[in-house]
């Protein structure tokens, strides 16, 4: 297949650029930055796809600088002379491939079929040669170079070799048979130690079994010891009981020696004795009481004296009592009638006197005769002075009023006017009166005056003397009545005084009190009471006396009975009797105590009698207690052991360490197998690669070497003629039949050998795939002679397939015609 031309829409520095290529070979010349390499990458991109944005690839994208269009067309001519147009563009991540065969659209599959077995990858590895492949030859060690050369039989062998190396290295990082620090080595170490631990892990079943057996053994011992313990506890308990009863035992022993008395007082007699004693005491008490009552029922001497005096003067007392009664009536009468009457009369008199102040209480009324005499005098007087008196008095009145009015007018004060009026009036009146006396009636008047004086009527006017005679009469009657009443009162008081005097005389011996009605009444009542009392006591006394007599009789009888009882028991008195009784009672109590002790001690009595002393008992108890303690310790120890074993067994049961440990081992196993798989995967992958390369070389080298020999001869200017592949090694023969091993070659010659073989392989592959070979200035380091040889090689290679070669320097002489030469410029 040949590339006949390209149409670049936009790629790197190219925009809308077309080139036509010669179908055998095409040399493209150009200085740096003219787009030689870009052109090769354009072809590669259109045929196999644009470089991705990832990794190193991103530098091979050649996005157009000056165009929005990216891509273009490559024109192919296949073996059957069909024209193919391969159009590939890319717009915003979407790559578009359009293929035409003789202007007929074709599918991508058709296109891939056209390319097969060529792939993008293969094309890059075999048909796209640049300096890098050759350059690396100079960086390899001799062995590496040999290895590279020997591996040249497979596609991309140098990459494979690198990968193989890397995989081997990765594998070595995981594990080395004699390593320590590598992951798998370390996991193996851990695995080993875990296995060792697992071995050390006690067989839990066995241990559990052993523990159970031990426990059974211990448990069998237990009942026997428990029985012993019980017995000892019983013994200790018994001895402790004996010790507690020791004091009782001693008491019992002491009581055993007390004798029993033959005499006994019968219960009836004791009761009789008690009853008698009680009865005697009671009766005696009764006597005492009765006597006391007798004593209490007599009047005392004072009372008796009082009664005697009273009885002696009884007649007088009765008289006085009667008199007192009469006086009381009188007094009541006075109080009820006379005294109020007196008050009334006095009030009447006072009233009269008030009404007639000119009168007094002691005036005596005039007799008829006297009254006529005075009336006669008066008549005489009246006739004399009737007229003058009237006018004078009237003039005086007018004068007084006039002066008073004048004063009022002058002073404007009523007060002074009234005063003035009164003074003048009084003065005038006095003057008038005085004048009267000096009147001609003086004689009569004197007479009348003496009359009045005679009868104490001086304060009365003449008329009043006549007019008031009635009143005076009344006053005189009142005076008389008042005097009569007063007499009654005075009489009573005198009688009363006499009475009190007599009473006082009579009662002086019996009371120091001031004598009064109350005292007298009280005294009389008291005397009366004492008299009654005296009578009552007399009756009582007789009764008590009879009772007393009866009691005395009873007492005598009781004492007789008691004496008989004493006689029965040969005792003299109750003291002796009671002593005897007490003795007998004590004996009885001791007897009872003894029986009680015997009961309390019970069976222990026999046990107790075995001991001579308390010390002996205590010693035996101590011994038993010690024994018990010792046994209990043994038992406790046994229980502890049991608990310990049970705990151990329980721990085994609860202990999930073993299962946890198994899990730990599983964790390790997983890590181990994962690391192992990773390691062996790498090892095997590396081995697979090298084995494959060997197979490829061994298969391809025979063919490869024929092409390579020619190329190598060209490149070495005919120095080397033959390359032999013998038993996996290359032998090189010069024109002079001199033989070299690869490592005996100079580095330059080795590089030429490598290039020769590489180009031979490319031709080999190209023979199969029939794809053009693109070479990018691959031979830059060669000397001039050798460089011109390159063009011969290119021409030689173009016999196999189309070669497109880009370089900076033009070939020397006329080695290449202008048709095959395309010059690029900026």
């Amino acid at each position, binding site marked *: 297949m040949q590339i006949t031309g390209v149409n670049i829409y936009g790629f790197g520095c190219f925009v809308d650029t077309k080139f036509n290529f010669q179908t055998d070979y095409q040399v493209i010349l150009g200085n740096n930055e003219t787009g030689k390499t870009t052109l090769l990458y354009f072809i590669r991109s259109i045929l196999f796809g644009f470089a991705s944005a990832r990794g190193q690839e991103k530098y091979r994208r050649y996005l157009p600088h000056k165009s929005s269009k990216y891509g273009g067309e490559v024109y192919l001519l296949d073996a059957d002379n069909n024209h193919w147009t391969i159009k590939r563009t890319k717009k915003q991540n979407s790559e578009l491939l359009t293929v035409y065969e003789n202007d007929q659209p074709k599918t991508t599959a058709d296109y891939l079929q056209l390319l097969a077995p060529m792939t993008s*990858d293969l094309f890059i*590895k075999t048909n796209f040669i640049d300096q890098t492949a050759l350059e690396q030859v100079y960086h390899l060690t001799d062995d590496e170079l040999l290895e590279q050369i020997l591996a040249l039989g497979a*596609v991309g062998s140098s990459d494979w070799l690198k990968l193989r190396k*890397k995989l081997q290295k990765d594998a070595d990082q995981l594990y080395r048979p004699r390593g320590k620090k590598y992951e798998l080595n370390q996991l193996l170490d851990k695995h080993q130690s875990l296995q060792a631990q697992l071995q050390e892990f006690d067989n839990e*079943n066995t241990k559990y079994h052993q523990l159970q057996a031990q426990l059974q053994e211990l448990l069998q011992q237990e009942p026997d010891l428990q029985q012993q313990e019980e017995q000892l506890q019983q013994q200790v308990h018994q001895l402790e009981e004996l010790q507690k009863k020791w004091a009782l035992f001693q008491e019992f022993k002491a009581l055993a020696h007390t004798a029993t008395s033959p005499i006994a007082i019968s219960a009836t007699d004791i009761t009789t004795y008690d009853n008698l004693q009680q009865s005697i005491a009671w009766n005696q008490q009764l006597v005492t009481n009765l006597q006391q009552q007798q004593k209490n029922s007599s009047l005392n001497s004072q009372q008796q004296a009082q009664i005697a005096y009273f009885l002696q003067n009884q007649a007088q007392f009765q008289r006085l009592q009667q008199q007192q009664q009469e006086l009381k009536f009188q007094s009541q009468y006075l109080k009820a009638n006379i005294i109020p009457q007196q008050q009334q009369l006095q009030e009447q008199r006072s009233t009269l006197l008030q009404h007639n102040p000119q009168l007094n209480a002691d005036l005596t009324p005039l007799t008829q005769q006297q009254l006529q005499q005075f009336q006669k005098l008066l008549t005489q007087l009246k006739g004399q002075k009737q007229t003058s008196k009237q006018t004078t008095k009237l003039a005086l009145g007018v004068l007084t009023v006039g002066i008073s009015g004048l004063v009022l007018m002058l002073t404007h004060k009523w007060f002074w006017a009234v005063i003035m009026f009164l003074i003048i009036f009084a003065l005038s009146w006095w003057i008038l009166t005085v004048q009267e006396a000096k009147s001609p009636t003086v004689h009569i008047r004197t007479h009348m005056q003496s009359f009045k004086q005679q009868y104490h009527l001086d304060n009365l006017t003449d008329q009043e003397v006549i007019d008031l005679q009635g009143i005076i009469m009344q006053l005189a009657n009142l005076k008389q009545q008042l005097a009569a009443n007063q007499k009654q009162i005075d009489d009573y008081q005198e009688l009363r005084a006499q009475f009190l005097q007599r009473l006082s005389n009579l009662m002086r011996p019996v009371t120091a009190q001031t004598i009064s009605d109350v005292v007298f009444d009280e005294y009389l009542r008291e005397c009366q009471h004492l008299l009654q009392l005296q009578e009552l006591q007399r009756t009582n006394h007789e009764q008590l006396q009879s009772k007393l007599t009866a009691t005395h009789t009873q007492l005598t009888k009781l004492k007789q009975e008691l004496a008989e009882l004493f006689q029965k028991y040969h005792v003299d008195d109750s003291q002796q009797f009671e002593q005897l009784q007490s003795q007998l009672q004590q004996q009885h109590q001791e007897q009872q105590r003894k029986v009680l002790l015997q009961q309390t001690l019970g069976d222990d009595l026999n046990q107790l009698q075995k001991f001579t002393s308390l010390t002996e008992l205590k010693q035996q108890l101590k011994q038993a207690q010690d024994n018990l303690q010792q046994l209990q310790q043994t038992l406790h120890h046994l229980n502890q052991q049991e608990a310990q074993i049970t705990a151990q067994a329980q721990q085994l049961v609860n202990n999930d360490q073993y*299962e946890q440990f198994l899990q730990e081992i599983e964790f390790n196993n997983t890590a181990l197998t994962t690391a192992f798989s990773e390691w062996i995967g790498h090892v095997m992958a590396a*081995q697979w690669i090298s084995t*494959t390369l060997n197979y490829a070389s061994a298969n391809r080298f025979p063919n490869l070497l024929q092409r390579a020999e020619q190329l190598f001869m060209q490149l070495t200017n005919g120095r080397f003629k033959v390359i032999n592949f013998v038993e996996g090694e290359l032998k090189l023969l010069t024109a002079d039949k001199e033989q070299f091993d690869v490592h005996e070659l100079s580095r330059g010659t080795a590089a030429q050998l490598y290039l020769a073989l590489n180009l031979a392989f490319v031709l080999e592959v190209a023979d199969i795939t029939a794809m053009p070979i693109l070479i990018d200035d691959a031979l830059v380091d060669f000397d001039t002679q050798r460089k011109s040889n390159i063009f011969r090689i290119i021409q030689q290679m173009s016999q196999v397939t189309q070669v497109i070669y880009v370089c900076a320097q033009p070939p020397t002489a006329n080695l290449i015609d202008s048709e095959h030469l395309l010059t690029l410029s900026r």
Partner: protein
Amino acid sequence: MKFIHTADLHLGSPFKGLTNLPSAIRQAVHNSIYQAFDTLVAQAIDLKVDFIVIAGDEFDNVERDLQAQLYLQQKFLELAQHHIPVFLIYGNHDYLTSSQAIVSYPSNVHVFGPQISTVTLKLVSGLRIAVSGFSYDQNHLTANKAQSYPARLDNVDYQIGILHGEIGQTNQNNYAPFSVEDLQSKGYDYWALGHIHQRQIINKNPYIVYPGNLQGRHRKETGAKGYYLVEWDGQQTNLEFRAVAPIIWQNQQLDVARIQDLDTLIKQITQTIANKQNTLVELTFTNYEKLSTTIQGLIDSGELLATLQKNAQSEHFNYIYRFHRQFTTKTIYQAIDEPFWKQAAQDVFTKANLQQHLGKLQQVAAIRDVYQNPDFLAKLQQTAIDIISQNKMED
């Protein structure tokens, strides 16, 4: 009549495939198997089942684990108090040994001996049940034991065969190999099988059933685990699966092809693994190569997993124990070289070649278990492809 059919308790078994766990989760893991059986016993009492059948492998390793043995004894005592009989056989994991005598079971438990025997049980309802079975007395039994089971008894209402084994050919299988026909021919009503940890009903007439194990213990024992509650109404046998495992193993996948940033990744991881039950999750990232190198770096270094593990809750957990990176493997080599790669693979991925690399690693049992796995070499080649592919991408 109803009974519980369970098997493969593997009491005392560690969880496999984990490298580490936070202590709380680790404790939950440790308790889980016991907890599952606790639940079974509690439900048996609650449901008043007539009896319980346990078809072998009660213990993961009977010789050593005292705790597990005493635990089971305790549980059987509990069932005894509720008058629930237990029919038990031992399997290949806990085959009869003399050391087992250490723990005795209460009288409600019938343990079948190494010889096939039949016991009958008369229920309160008057129904007569026969149970036939045997226990392993060695690790491997290559003989077909199923054929030796007695024919169905005439005078029973229901007959159950307990068998710990797997379908296979005599002498070609270590676990009492049998065929479905062998079992069908006996005329029993129910075959209570054990050994296979994946729950499955092999046959329905009569029922031939593996209840699976009670609690998954590694990444291959995924999903709900529990027992079968078997009810017989006099005519038909009905099965009800009852999940009791407190921890579920899950293998989840997450396609990371379109994931651009870490936040989205974490969010999607959280969504993917979210589960109401406690889970141990292996999370596989498919299209791993599409992830950015930065995120890949976080995953490859273990940093992301460590962070997620650190943040795992302990009361309710969906704990990722492993990330698995899955690449959409392109052909790692060119078509023109394919013959050489294939030729080389035939040389490289062989047991003999493998052993040359292993050296003293062969002494490690855990490693032996890995490489002696029959499909190990095939897997190893895939691993190699993954490794190469991943490394090539990194270039």
